[in-house]
């Protein structure tokens, strides 16, 4: 038996935990390991969970579990691009998102484009658009102020749009 309430409060967010871990790791097996680590930690910390938001609480633990695995592996450290060194690419104005949407391959490319964003950008988009988190929840998961969530999301979206346009243009040039 788990601590009282753990099964009801935490395990219902296992899908959210896995989805987030899967986008962080970009790998099924590794996502499973991260989620398992995270759940064992979550059980240990369970008494510290106040009643407000078990999902954000669990996602924050998933994130920590992932980072601590990552720090044990030097090879993957290259995945973390320091935000300040990342040059922002302003999206080119020639294609609007609606036009991109109408191009079938763009829809297929969304997954790849998102997976290739630096992790700090990738995670805010995943939490917002795919997991449906509020800014407050994202702030709690990523442990930054809401203002930072806001600006990071803006930069992440610009970069994603630029990447999607690049892949759409590549497709156009292809014979």
């Amino acid at each position, binding site marked *: *038996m*788990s*601590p*009282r309430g*753990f099964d*009801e*409060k935490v*395990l*219902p*967010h*296992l*899908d959210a*935990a*896995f*989805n987030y871990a*899967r*986008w962080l790791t970009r790998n*099924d097996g590794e*996502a*499973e390991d991260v*989620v*398992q680590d995270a*759940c*064992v930690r979550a*059980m*240990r910390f369970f008494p510290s969970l106040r*009643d407000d*938001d*078990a999902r954000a609480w669990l996602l924050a633990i998933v994130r920590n579990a992932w980072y601590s695995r990552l720090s044990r592996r030097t090879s993957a450290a290259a995945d973390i691009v320091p935000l300040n060194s990342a040059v922002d690419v302003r999206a080119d104005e020639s294609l*609007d*998102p*609606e036009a*991109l*949407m109408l191009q079938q391959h*763009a*829809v297929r490319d*969304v*997954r790849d484009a*998102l997976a290739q964003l630096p992790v700090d950008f990738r995670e805010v*988009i*995943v939490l*917002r*658009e*795919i997991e*449906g988190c*509020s*800014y407050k929840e994202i702030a709690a998961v990523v442990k930054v102020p809401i203002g930072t969530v*806001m600006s990071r*999301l*803006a930069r992440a*979206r610009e970069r*994603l*749009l630029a990447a*999607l346009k690049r892949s759409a243009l590549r497709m156009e040039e292809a014979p």
Partner: protein
Amino acid sequence: MTCEDVDRHLDPYVDRECDQEAAMAIREHLSGCAACRQRVADRQALGRLVRTAPYYPAPDSVRARVSTAVRRSLSTRRMLTWAAAATLLLAVSGGLLIVRSTGSVRLSSADAIVDEVVADHVRSLMADHLFDIRSADQHTVKPWFLGKLDFSPPVTDLASIGFPLAGGRLEYLAGRPVAALVYQRQKHTINVFVWPAVETTSSNALRTVHGFHVEHWTRDGMSLWAVSDLNVAELNEFARALQR
């Protein structure tokens, strides 16, 4: 408000995370600025595009691994706890031991809830008070409940399979404020009532009261009740889609 101000608030605005005042100022600016309107529309289109990216639900293998890992880790912990308790008991032997009953979670009477759910469904149609928020966009309906409820109801549009989301409202049911989500199936209305589950077991059940069908299930710690005059097969299809 200038175009630069709008640019700065673009993301919170499309994400509906602006405060009322800022949102109003932006709307006012948008009504007279086609360029900013286009920027907002582009951001919204990008959102729709991004939401075509896959959601990866936990596979069964993860559920199994997690429950094994959690239990194993707990049994170690419990042994330590028992050891500590035994030591403590020895230390205070002769003292008073108070055993507190753990108090099991009481199942609210499901039948009473079914009656309430049906009555509320009927009232919502008769009183013509189906909506507090009228929108087919799950990202509009879900945040609307923020600050109105102490939980965040799952909101999924099912237009792709013929059950478009139409909106939501606040209700008071089973002794607490709950979320009511409204879906349409042709001329039929489906109300889905959502609140945090108190049941210890999840039970999927179908009941019929006065010709209305009620489907009940629990998911992600939420208790969900779908009620409609729709036929059983279609209501079941709807409920299954929501459970995915």
